[in-house]
């Protein structure tokens, strides 16, 4: 297999820490991939509502480039990009008329069907290696006991016929990754509810209304952090969290799933770009470190006695 990497626009800008963390983790897991040369925007959020053809053509150009550059698999860490790439490929497979006019629109021949990955299913496939690295590094793991709410949102899981996620209503793939990283996924209710996605800028109050339910539910079910795999979700739950939180409530860090894996396998907060998050991750990191140290000290004391 040859894996192509499609970063998408957010990972080069407002969510650059996602790229930092994704690249650091894939490097540590020895996942080989090559960034698609001269990739362009997938059109997420704005192309498909205006024109179906444009909504398919923009991602299809990138699939064509990936195939021309020798890839048979693509990973798009951004859930919106992933969804657009997968949707385009699905629609081209299902609509012969669309497939027939697409080469003329693209100026490229139609790419063969590629295996399109999101960051969650990619990491889930490497769960055993994550577990190995966690075990090799520290005992007990840094994230032991950390209660995490796995937040999928919409674009990873829906429509299920396109994404093929394990379950549209009660997915568990991200939980597999969280467990592999040594943390504990919590059972909660808002895992696949929408955060408001692309309305972050144009309709901020809607996003705050939707995000508040998500953060509140995660908190009510004992989560200490929310794991996300989408820059849009992250922006809404991170940058907008201040507006969702009542006075006196502790903020709830929204971490990329790669952040959790990275911390678990010993990458530094700096390598993962944690300082770029708006919700301060320092208190959580400090308490994790303190707890790990306390456990280690206790273990050492037991050993020497």
């Amino acid at each position, binding site marked *: 297999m040859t894996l192509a990497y499609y970063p998408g626009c957010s990972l080069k800008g407002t969510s650059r820490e996602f790229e930092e963390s994704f690249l650091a983790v894939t490097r540590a897991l020895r996942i080989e991939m090559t960034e698609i040369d001269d990739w362009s925007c997938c059109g997420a959020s704005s192309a498909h*509502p205006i024109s179906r053809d444009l909504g398919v053509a923009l991602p299809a150009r990138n699939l064509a480039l990936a195939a021309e550059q020798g890839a048979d698999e693509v990973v798009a860490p951004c859930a919106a990009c992933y969804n657009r790439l997968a949707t385009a490929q699905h629609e081209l497979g299902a609509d012969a008329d669309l497939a027939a006019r697409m080469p003329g629109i693209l100026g490229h021949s139609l790419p063969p069907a590629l295996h399109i990955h999101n960051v969650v299913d990619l990491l889930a496939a490497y769960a055993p290696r994550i577990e190995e690295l966690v075990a090799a590094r520290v005992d007990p793991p840094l994230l032991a006991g950390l209660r995490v709410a796995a937040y999928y949102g919409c674009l990873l899981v829906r429509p299920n016929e396109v994404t093929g996620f394990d379950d549209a209503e009660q997915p568990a793939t991200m939980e597999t990754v969280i467990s592999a990283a040594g943390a504990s996924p919590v059972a909660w209710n808002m895992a696949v509810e929408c955060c408001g996605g692309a309305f972050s800028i144009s309709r901020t109050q809607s996003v705050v209304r939707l995000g508040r339910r998500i953060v509140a539910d995660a908190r009510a079910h004992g989560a200490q952090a929310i794991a996300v795999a989408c820059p849009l979700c992250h922006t809404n739950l991170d940058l907008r969290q201040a507006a969702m939180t009542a006075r006196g409530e502790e903020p709830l860090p929204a971490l990329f799933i790669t952040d959790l894996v990275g911390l678990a396998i010993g990458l530094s907060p700096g390598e993962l770009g944690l300082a770029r998050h708006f919700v301060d991750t320092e208190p959580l990191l400090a308490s994790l470190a303190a707890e790990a140290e306390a456990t280690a000290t206790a273990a050492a004391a037991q050993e020497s006695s």
Partner: protein
Amino acid sequence: MTNQSGAMSRSDAVVRLLAETRSAAARCYQCGKCSAGCPMVSEMTLPPHDIMRLTAHGRFAEVLSADSLWLCLTCETCSERCPTGTDPAAIIDALREAAVLDGRREVPRSIAAFHRSFLDQVRLTGRLYEAGFFAEYKLRSRALLDDIGNAPGLVRRGKLHPLPHRLHGIGEVRAIFERCGVRASDLSGAGHAPAADDAGGAPGGGDPGGGAEGGHA
């Protein structure tokens, strides 16, 4: 209709899109499960099941001017749970496309500004040049001061690149826009409603013009 070259094919495209959409909506049996699960329904003038009903009955004047089309997040909850397989999210996408081709101007201003600015930046640079996007969005939405407090934070965290990336295949991307018939003028001038339509949180908020024409009082 009009004599301007190309206009006929756009209106033909609208007719075709609406006919396809109408027959797709015929599967809907009005159970309301789409509206029940819709995260934006409390802000919509027409809930999703009403959009399906009016579409199935060919009442496009009401549908195409509804703010609800533009309040859809394409979260696909409706389509995932729809018992009849109607796929409201895809129908709403097609209705939006028809509304744009039809030159409708009832899109809530902030959302029109978002889509216009997004696509402009992609057409210009091949990628979403975020700094340019924010600047253009501010101008188009006339919400100059909204969110301005977050700008220093974004800059401090190194999240805003001052200059766009240079794409070799920019010509290809522009050609794609051209061939898909998406014009720079689409959505321009849309958003006749005052900035109050950005209130968002209030039920029934949004485009008052759409509300009047929505007609399910």
